């Protein structure tokens, strides 16, 4: 295991201390693993709380700030946070207009957020959860815990955050969050495994000319093993899987996301293939992100996330945002 760390036990808290030192716009409670805006809650504004296992940076802490999240609670690496953290976050950001919980669809995240919402309710805070489940690699059926929440989480947090900043009521913020989730799909591909620091060895073995198609953001195995073919072919496989589930027409917001160990030159190369694939089928990419936004430690690979935009979603996407990992308009 080759990592820049002090010890497997302190990875998350050491990194949180670094985040705190680097971004004075954030208030970071390292001990309780809680990241909020330095300003505190905004009266009359819906609070946005998200959280999940660590190892996906910049998600979620890097998206706390004006126009996006009010708080993030990171768990241990790849392990959802605990209800105590989520409750503390919910109380910290409640500005009297209620709190939205952005939850990625994993049993652990769902159960812990459910418990937290119940506890918050007991304390008189209105909480509405929105569960993100955009990963088409898993079929959503009676036979699974449902689709995993992956890249669409970034879109949900940005767009719902923008609407909340306009002091829309909780119901509307939750509705737009669900709308973004319903209009978004993702597919991920891994070239290499990641290594959970506390585990010390790669989560899965993979050959030098193999790739994992449909990999999860925790290194969960995907649909199949494939051969390491060209970026064009790999991209087509990913987009075919998405297109089989959602008609890729009209104006699209597209993210080509790196898994953590893939350099930007390769991500732009993949974006070029995505662009050719989608425009070749008559769609228009009107907004895009290319970079590392929801990672899996040092895994090499990428994911592509597509959202079918509407004019109002585009307007919310363009709204000013000022967070460590996403910033424009101010």
């Amino acid at each position: 295991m080759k990592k820049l760390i002090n010890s497997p036990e302190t990875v998350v808290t050491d990194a949180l201390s670094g985040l705190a030192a680097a971004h004075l716009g954030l208030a970071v409670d390292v001990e309780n693993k809680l990241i909020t805006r330095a300003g505190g809650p905004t009266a009359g504004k819906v609070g946005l709380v998200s959280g999940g296992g660590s190892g996906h940076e910049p998600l979620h802490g890097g998206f706390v700030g004006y126009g996006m999240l009010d708080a993030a609670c990171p768990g241990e690496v790849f392990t959802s946070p605990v209800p105590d953290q989520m409750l503390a976050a919910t109380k910290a950001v409640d500005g009297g207009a209620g709190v939205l919980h952005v939850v990625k669809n994993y049993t652990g995240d769902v159960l812990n957020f459910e418990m937290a919402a119940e506890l918050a309710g007991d304390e008189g805070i209105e909480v509405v959860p929105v569960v993100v489940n955009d990963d088409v690699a898993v079929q959503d059926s009676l036979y699974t815990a449902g689709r995993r929440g992956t890249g669409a989480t970034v879109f949900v947090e940005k767009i719902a955050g923008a609407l909340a900043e306009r002091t829309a009521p909780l119901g509307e913020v939750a509705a737009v969050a669900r709308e973004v989730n319903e209009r978004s799909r993702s597919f991920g591909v891994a070239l290499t495994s990641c290594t959970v620091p506390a585990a010390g060895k790669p989560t899965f073995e993979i050959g030098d000319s193999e790739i994992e198609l449909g990999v999860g953001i925790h290194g969960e195995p995907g649909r199949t093993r494939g051969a390491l073919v060209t970026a064009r072919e790999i991209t087509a496989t990913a987009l075919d899987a998405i297109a089989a589930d959602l008609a890729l027409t009209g104006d699209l917001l597209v993210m080509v996301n790196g898994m953590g160990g893939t350099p930007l030159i390769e991500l732009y190369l993949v974006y070029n293939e995505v662009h050719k694939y989608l425009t070749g089928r008559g769609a228009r990419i009107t907004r895009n992100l290319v970079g590392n936004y929801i990672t899996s430690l040092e895994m090499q690979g990428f994911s592509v996330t597509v959202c079918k935009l509407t004019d109002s979603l585009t307007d919310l996407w363009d709204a000013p945002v000022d967070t460590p990992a996403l910033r424009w308009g101010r």
Partner: protein
Amino acid sequence: MDAGFFRAWVAEIAAVVETQRDHLTQLDAAIGDADHGINLSRGFGAVQAALAQASAATPGSVLVLAGSTLISKVGGASGPLYGTAFRHAGKALGDGPEVDLPALAGALEAALSGVQKLGAAREGEKTMVDALAPAASAFSKAVADGASPTGAFSALADAAEAGAQATIPMQALKGRASYLGPRSVGHEDPGAASTALIMRALRDVAARPAP
């Protein structure tokens, strides 16, 4: 069985989880995200610390504190699920200083129903329920049949172990492993395996000569 007995059980679980930490993590690596052993060692370590602090003088209060601590420290799927199991078991034991076998049997049934209510898993879906359910009913049956403590606890541990083994051919329908669909077949479920360890720990503690 008094509070000391249940403290000893939890201590034994913490010890076993430490030795089996990597094994449980490897099981989770195969069909999950390689953290189950890490999660439980963090969790039961915290439970040990909490119990060392707390007065918790009744069997019920020991298990409730254990459950609450798991919920507060573990995260993931197993945190709320095991936490709920211990909390419900503890609540079922009431606040008497001593509990008997029938009371413990009722507590195990309460743990099971708590897990199923929260996680909505039925037997056969390749989860901890597949070890906990047969263990609870085997124990209840043995107790009802007037089996000796030794016999009842052996039935409990054996049923849990058999239940865990039985998850190998199953396709996971709940939890992270379900994402694999058919590819989840052929692997033992990590949570079922840890449940078997927890029940074995109970048997071993019960087998110790009373101090």
